[in-house]
């Protein structure tokens, strides 16, 4: 089959670096570094204490190693845990005060912060390495009582809310990477939607790793109070580097009675080159608690980047009649690996969950769906529906489905469906004969395959995601 000729720089157009002076914490992981981070963020003492408790626990923890994609040992002492553009210690009050180079960076990424304010109607929080550099639309949101700001700012200005909810879904006693994050998290977004408020616009955070030898540990906390609704989207990119960079984020969602949170991710970290050199290790813990009755949390993820993606956005369905959803597209091309899925923990009565997972593997890519559905003895009349579809391109890639099902309640119902298919040369020939070139044909077939998931994305991002899905698979059929 004809190999597509693509300029490598076109394959990952976000691979540039921004030449900007930065302030870094000393290399390595120790109490001093944690104090440095806490200090530079002007955190209250309780936050530092919390971090240090997490750190002391971390010392007794080991990295989990049950996952399918293996990776070389990470030297945690050889990383920087804090890197920030110089001058960001004093938070800019308006976009005009933000370093023009940063504004330019986001423009290159397709996020024009200034225009965004005027045109698109999406509120954006932009996180560059370890700090948040700009949040748009703040005033309009404040009118409704909505808080959308960097988490470092929330720790200072809304300590009661943060104190009450941080670690309540992902405690500091969790697994290695989650606890590491609790010790060293640098920035991320904080969202609070007051009772009865429907957030009038999409909230969005854009994460960007720029500095080398730096890990990114962001922490996001979203609280939807009773009867409120919010839709939140995160996007991610990083420069092309030979080294593997660690990204270990924690995301906690809390939905109270009758509240709904829709959380979408378009993950396009640098995936490494076509020989598998470099790329981001995307080891992320995402968990939502449907704490109130009739609450709903819906995760949608489009995972196209990273050398290794390892994450299970989960729902703890505590409230009666609560609903958890997980829609996922995971693409692995070249030497990318993904081990992703979800956990649906049914605790309340009449709880419902739905899992739609679409795994696409091309090149030497390896894709694992791993998911847990647990129905506890008290979760009467609960239901789960799971559908896992895998699409293979070429002969060197792999797809695996590992469902774990635990049902302790006889009035509950669990369904699981799985399919595996392959894009054939015949199908491509058919599309070519109708005038479509290889990339267009693949994009069409793959977008058809994952349509159910892409439809879940907010409209503003669905088109972008469709294009991304096409680009990620260029040259994947050898």
């Amino acid at each position, binding site marked *: 089959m004809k190999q597509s000729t693509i300029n490598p720089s076109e394959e990952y157009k976000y691979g540039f670096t921004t030449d900007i002076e930065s302030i870094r914490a000393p290399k390595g992981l120790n109490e001093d570094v944690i104090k440095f981070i806490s200090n530079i963020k002007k955190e209250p003492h309780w936050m530092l204490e919390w971090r240090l408790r997490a750190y002391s626990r971390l010392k007794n923890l080991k990295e989990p190693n049950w996952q399918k994609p293996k990776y070389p040992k990470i030297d945690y002492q050889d990383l920087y845990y804090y890197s920030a553009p110089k001058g960001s210690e004093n938070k800019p009050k308006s976009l005009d005060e933000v370093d023009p180079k940063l504004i330019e960076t986001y423009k290159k990424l397709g996020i024009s912060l200034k225009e965004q304010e005027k045109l698109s109607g999406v509120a954006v929080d932009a996180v560059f390495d370890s700090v948040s550099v700009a949040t748009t639309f703040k005033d309009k949101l404040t009118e409704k009582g909505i808080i959308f700001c960097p988490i470092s700012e929330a720790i200072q200005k809304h300590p009661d809310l943060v104190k009450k909810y941080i670690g309540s879904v992902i405690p500091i006693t969790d697994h290695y990477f989650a606890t590491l994050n609790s010790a060293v998290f640098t920035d991320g977004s904080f969202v609070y939607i007051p009772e009865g408020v429907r957030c009038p616009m999409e909230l969005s955070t854009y994460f960007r790793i720029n500095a080398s030898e730096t890990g990114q540990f962001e922490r996001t906390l979203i609280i939807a109070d009773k009867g409120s609704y919010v839709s939140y989207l995160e996007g991610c990119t990083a420069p092309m580097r030979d080294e593997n960079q660690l990204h270990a984020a924690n995301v906690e969602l809390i939905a109270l009675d009758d509240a709904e949170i829709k959380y979408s991710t378009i993950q396009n970290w640098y995936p490494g080159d076509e020989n598998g050199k470099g790329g981001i290790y995307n080891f992320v813990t995402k968990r939502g608690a449907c704490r109130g009755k009739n609450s709903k949390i819906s995760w949608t993820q489009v995972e196209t980047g990273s050398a290794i993606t390892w994450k299970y956005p989960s729902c703890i369905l505590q409230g009666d009649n609560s609903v958890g959803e997980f829609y996922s597209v995971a693409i692995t091309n070249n030497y990318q690996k993904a081990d992703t899925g979800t956990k649906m923990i049914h605790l309340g009565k009449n709880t419902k969950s739905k899992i739609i997972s679409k795994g696409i593997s091309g090149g030497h890519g390896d894709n694992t769906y791993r998911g847990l559905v647990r129905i506890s003895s008290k979760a009467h009349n609960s239901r789960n529906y799971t559908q896992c579809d895998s699409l293979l391109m070429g002969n060197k890639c792999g797809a695996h489905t590992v469902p774990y099902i635990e049902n302790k309640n006889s009035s509950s119902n669990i369904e699981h469906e799985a399919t595996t*298919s392959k894009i054939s040369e015949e199908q491509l*020939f058919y599309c*070519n*004969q109708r005038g*479509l070139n290889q990339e267009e044909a693949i994009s069409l077939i793959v977008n*058809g395959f994952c349509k159910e998931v892409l439809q879940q994305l907010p409209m503003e991002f669905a088109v972008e995601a469709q294009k991304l899905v096409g680009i990620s698979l260029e040259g994947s059929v050898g």
Partner: protein
Amino acid sequence: MLDIKSLSASIDGKKILDGFDLKIKPGEVHAIMGPNGSGKSTLANVLTGKNGYEIKGQVFYEGKDLLNLPIEERAQKGLFMAFQYPLEIPGVNTNNFLKTSLNTIRKVRGLKELDSLDFLKLVKTKTKNLKIDEKILNRQLNVGFSGGEKKKNEILQMTILEPKLAILDETDSGLDIDALRIVSDGVNALRSKERSFLIITHYQRLLDYIKPDFVHVLVNGKIAKTGCGELAEELEKVGYERMEIAK
């Protein structure tokens, strides 16, 4: 339109076309008949650019070398093939596939792309004219289609894409009489002074509905005999074997 000069094609070392010559002028309808394994489908595949063949000889399409063009460029330049076995593509909506295809081709031809509304109007008119149930438009491309529906869908695509040269690869096989009529009506409606057809078939039956200008008998990878419509009827009577002996 099309000029094929001593074309040979082999697959895995086995020669299938062997010194094949054919000239098609604008507006002409050529039928190619031949027994199983005579190379009919290979001819269609080689002309459209399918991979996997070792090819010798020359093919000129509108005066230009065809064999070096990628598959999609041949299609964009107006070469269309109705597949013998149209492919199923799950998840891809038939309507969307057709629209993407048409707009890609329109773009190359320097025409304005059709928006969804204009496209829908066009496709509705065409399905109606062809007496094809428009429900197939909202189904996944060829998925779960009956044999007849698949072939009708090919004719619908041909009608919408308006090719310059259409190759029909055994489109008639497996069709009942009603579907056969839809297929041949579709072809006849498209016949014009500029548009040419290459109709590959086993049976003379289709040629009762589509009157070809020329009928060629393909035996062992080359044309053994050329005639007009009566040749097909004669073939039907005596069979390919006797024809071969006559050669």
